[in-house]
């Protein structure tokens, strides 16, 4: 606790530090406390821990783990405080292209790159989600082996992920976008399952390839914008990577006779950016990296991967291409809808054919991410808000799904559905959590996942009418695969139960205390956001309204 207190002081000091010598005297609550602090702390811890010998590492694991947990609580405290206005009054009721807690420091002046951060209704829920998930993940995977390096990596992952969400500069955005790959790569590589080598490389290369295409799109876009003067503009290139400038330029030129870019140019760039985001999302047919990565990844990695990393794709879509190329969105609307539908249906159907629990859950993520695409294709604020809330809700539910899978793997040494029966007998807690998570994921009302699905379907009908039968079919299939998997794990087994062969006749234990704590936190928040969705949805709704006012309404499409 002393350590924790010390860290709070340090973080507070650091929050003020960048503002020294800046004419803007407001405190920077983002750069250091939310982004820099976790990354730096974890980098120090990693550098420190990796030098130690194996035996020393084991001794050091406990204090480092505790330290990491304390450190990860600080961003959570700050983001929560920012939401409830405990630290300062933050006006979350923002117009389009306005951001709270904006801060900008020049970085690479020659090409117009700045460290520009800020949050709005789109990014803040994701930031909070990340800050929330990191400590939960740490608690959940408290007993992971090699904790001296494992938990700092989780912390680093969190910092990088927050960086993606707060970046208001395309360059910065891309930097964090790629930075997230590295801790995840190591998490899979060092703590993964049997095929971790293949999975880690596939994960890295697949998403890297896609984001490289995205980068080309960004660079082309960069040079296609009008030159300007100002601190954000590059001294050499005369262009800027600043998103806010891009957005205001785009919305100034868009949708009228005075076209920002030629239509086909918009289409090409939109497609290039979308490829990067669709792979990250992931949408069928670019999804095959995900099951491999998930199945091999350690629990904590999976939780963050599914909880936040996938949402980077959705976030990116909403943040960049749609805001800049609304014409292209309308052009691609049906294609996006089709991809969304295919992801939704295909993910669910393949789920039903899986025998590996984690693989099934991974495919269910694919399916759920399709919902986001449907929301985007719906062209309704409610659809967009649904996409946002889906990101958020799935960000709480899917970590729980993977936490359950992880605990299952941990205690039963098996991932096969049907390798055992009657889990409820030995592991009642795990059975309850599993059932809870499964139910939350299949969209049971009053749990977080339902609202988003409902809203998406509402927005979906006026545009696409009877195609709604496919999502409907998926609702049933989702129930089918979840229930079927529960029937073959939690239930049955007779009075004696059938423990899996992988245990060699030992009595399976119930989950550990830390797992219990981690899961109960996730469960509680799933319920909270299911019953009181307005906590998060209010902000999201305001954002969508501002977005539609700012982007679509101008041209009156």
């Amino acid at each position: 606790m002393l350590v924790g207190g010390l860290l709070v002081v340090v973080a507070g000091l650091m929050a003020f530090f960048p503002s020294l010598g800046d004419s803007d005297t407001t405190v920077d609550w983002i750069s250091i406390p939310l982004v820099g602090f976790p990354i730096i702390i974890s980098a120090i811890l990693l550098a420190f821990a990796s030098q130690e010998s194996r035996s020393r590492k084991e001794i050091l694991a406990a204090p480092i783990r505790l330290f990491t947990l304390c450190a990860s609580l600080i961003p959570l405290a700050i983001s929560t405080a920012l939401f409830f206005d405990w630290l300062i009054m933050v006006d979350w009721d923002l117009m389009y292209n306005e951001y709270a807690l904006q801060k900008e420091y020049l970085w690479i002046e020659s090409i117009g790159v700045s460290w520009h951060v800020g949050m709005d209704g789109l990014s803040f829920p994701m930031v909070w989600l990340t800050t929330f998930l990191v400590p939960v993940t740490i608690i959940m995977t408290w007993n992971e082996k090699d904790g001296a390096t494992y938990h700092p990596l989780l912390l680093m992952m969190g910092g990088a992920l927050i960086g993606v969400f707060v970046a208001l500069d395309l360059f910065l955005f891309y930097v964090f976008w790629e930075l997230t790959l590295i801790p995840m790569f190591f998490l899979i590589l060092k703590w993964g399952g049997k095929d971790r080598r293949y999975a880690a490389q596939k994960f890295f290369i697949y998403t890297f390839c896609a984001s490289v295409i995205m980068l080309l799109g960004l660079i082309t876009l960069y040079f296609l914008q009008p030159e300007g003067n100002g601190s954000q503009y590059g001294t050499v290139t005369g262009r800027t990577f600043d998103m806010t400038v891009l957005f205001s330029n785009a919305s100034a030129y868009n949708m009228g006779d005075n076209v920002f870019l030629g239509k086909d140019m918009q289409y090409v760039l939109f497609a290039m950016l979308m490829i990067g985001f669709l792979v990250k999302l992931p949408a069928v047919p670019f999804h095959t990296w995900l099951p491999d990565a998930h199945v091999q990844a350690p629990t904590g990695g999976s939780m963050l991967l599914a909880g936040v990393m996938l949402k980077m794709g959705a976030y990116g879509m909403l943040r960049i291409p749609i805001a800049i190329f609304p014409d292209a969105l309308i052009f691609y609307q049906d294609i996006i809808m089709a991809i969304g539908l295919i992801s939704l249906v295909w993910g669910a159907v393949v789920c039903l054919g899986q025998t590996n629990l984690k693989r099934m859950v991974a495919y269910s993520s694919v399916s759920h991410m399709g919902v986001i695409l449907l929301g985007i294709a719906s062209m309704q604020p409610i659809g967009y808000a649904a996409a946002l809330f889906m990101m958020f809700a799935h960000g709480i539910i899917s970590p729980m799904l993977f936490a359950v899978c992880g605990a299952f793997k941990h205690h039963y040494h098996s991932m096969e559905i049907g390798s055992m029966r009657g889990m409820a007998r030995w592991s009642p807690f795990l059975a309850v959590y599993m059932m809870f998570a499964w139910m939350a994921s299949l969209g049971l009302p009053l749990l977080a996942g339902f609202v988003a699905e409902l809203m998406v379907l509402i927005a979906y009908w006026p545009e696409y009418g009877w195609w709604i039968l496919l999502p409907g079919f998926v609702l049933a299939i989702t129930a089918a695969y979840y229930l079927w998997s529960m029937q073959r794990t939690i239930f049955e087994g007779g009075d004696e139960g059938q423990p899996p062969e992988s245990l060699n006749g030992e009595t399976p234990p119930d989950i550990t205390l830390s797992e219990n704590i981690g899961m109960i936190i996730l469960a509680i928040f799933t319920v909270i956001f299911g019953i009181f969705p307005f906590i998060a949805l209010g902000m999201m709704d305001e954002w969508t309204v501002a977005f539609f006012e700012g982007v679509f309404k101008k041209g009156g499409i």
Partner: protein
Amino acid sequence: MSESGIIDYAVLIPLLPMLAFPVILFLGKMFNGTPTWVKNVKEGGIIALTVMGASLLLALLVIKEHMHHVGTANIFTWFESSWWNPETGAITTKVFGVGVYIDHLTVMLLFVAAFLCFLINIFSIGYMNTDPINDNRNHRFYAEFVLFCSGMLGMVLADSFLWLFIFWELMGLCSYLLIGFYYERPSAAYAAKKAFLTTRVGDVFLVIGLIMLWNLFQPYAGTQGALSYAVVFDPANIAKVNPGDLQIALGMMFIGAVGKSAQFPLHVWLPDAMEGPTPVSALIHAATMVNAGLYLVARMFPFFSGAELGALSTLAIVIACIGGITAVMAALIAFVQMDLKKVLAYSTMSQLAYIFTGLGSALWFANNGYEELAAFAMGASLFHLFNHAMAKGMLFMASGSVIHEMHHAHHEVAHHGHDDDHGDDHDDHHDDHFDAQSMENMGGLASRMPITATAMFFGSMSIIGIPLIGGFWSKEGIISSAWQVARKEPVFLLPAMLVLIGAGMTGFYMSRMWFMTFAGKPKTEVAEKVHEQTAWIPIPLVILTFMTLGAFILAGMHAGHWLGDFNNGHYSNFFDGIGYELEHVFMNHDMFLFILTYVAIGLSLILGPSLAMSLYGGSLDDGQKAKPWMQWAISLSAKVNSKSNFDNSAWANSSLSESLHKRLHFDDIYDAAMLKIVVGFANLSAIFDSKVIDGVIKTIESTSQEVSRRVRSLTTGSARDYIMMATLGTLVIFMLLWGVA
């Protein structure tokens, strides 16, 4: 719209049980097995009972206040979201609120739900806590039970279709949990999954229907976003929407109701649902939850009365037909069931089908401008809902009582049969295959279980529609309504005919059940040992017996009319009322209805029961004496049986009987469709996914390695080749340069 008063507290009715859910679960986990917890709190039963009592009390207060006027209350804004009109560019914020809406429909169902839940709770304390198989997990039962009650109560109180659906789903979850209560039994696990999935299929359509409805009413809803009744029941709004679309939307919603109320073709889950703790979960599925579908259809009434004349009548006909088909089909299957609870389950399906037919008639009338007839049909249907719920609740509890005591008796018998130690008898109790639920093992229980037998007796009579008792009043109304429609709309002849036939069939299978169980000689040694033990079980039975018998009072108070239109009949004199009713039923001025009534009575009172008596009747053991109100029936049955004991083996061995035993093959077909087609397709998809979609990636990888190998093999290691390549490169450069120059 909001008003203050007791309605502000109406929200507590579902909220209290909902809050009790985690409390019981948590306390149960904490104190599991401690003496106080087991003895005094009854493993959570007392907590649940307290909460349900409070809910019932509140519900009664609310009912008293809102017997004759609609009440609404907003609770909180669930969330807000915005809608963009692409034509105008206007962005409207839609408020998805939560609120309470109370009218006569709500009042009736609120009473049914709260009252029955309370009684069931009492019953379960008697039933669950005395069965050793439930030791240490009753808290789970009570937790799930209160959550279930919360769902039911919330559903009837909700002020919008959205929240109706939410609680609807909550109930679905709880039914899943309760059916799968004995998780270790594969059959229970299977049944739980089946129930959830089947209702889920219906729910999908319900959601789609709701979304269509949402979009239909969205332009007129202003800032209202939650499909609130205030918006969708506004006749001005209904008049504006396209009736064709509205019909489709309502049809979709009806499919949801079909799933929940176990109607053809989504009926397959209900018989399996009897895998739940006997008989409580079964009771829930029979007496309360299945009413949700009926409630939903009844809620659609304003659309039918508000929409363009005749525009929605197709849907009304479909509803009635589904009802009619299910009524006969379920009754047929019930003919051959040996399991006590299964008979009741099929009976439930059949009776619900009656109500659907009645509702269909009511909706047809409403849509075609016959307001009075519509109100009458509606009232009859809802009154039947009420009667059926009471009677069926009682029947299930009684059957539970029978099974419970059979268990105990078997336990004793088996125990005395063995000489070895006492500790293990719990285990061997499961090893032999004595079926405590099979009527083949019962018989002659009327004297041994007098209260139960009485309850069963009157319950059955109510279901059959024996004149003046319970369901009679409403059933006659349904049948006559259906025929009334049929006179105007020939297509309606089908459901009308079916319900009429069904009346006779009901008479048969209900009587069959009662006589097989309670009349005749005990068929096994176990049945001889049966006797009533716990005090908790008879209480609800007695209460419900009086409720059933007292239905004629309600009828006299024009409950049927009140249910059809709550401005009706509430201050009429009871004796005038009962006279009016009797006159209308037995001496109808309309010749057609007059004949119909007597045909129906004849079928259900004479034909069905006498057939059952002739097959299954018989007197009790010597020295055993049933209570006088049942003794005459037993004696009669013995007489009929001995007079005309005809051989029904030809029928029993027929292929129809065979397929009835197989439940008309619906389960087989669905299972096959699920396992062969859907799962087969899924497995193929999974293979396709890993072999083709991922295969492309893997092929790229392996191909690139191969290409790399080939490219590298060009680096031969000989300096001469390198020079040669450089020279060739030079030539290529020349060619390219020349190409431009």
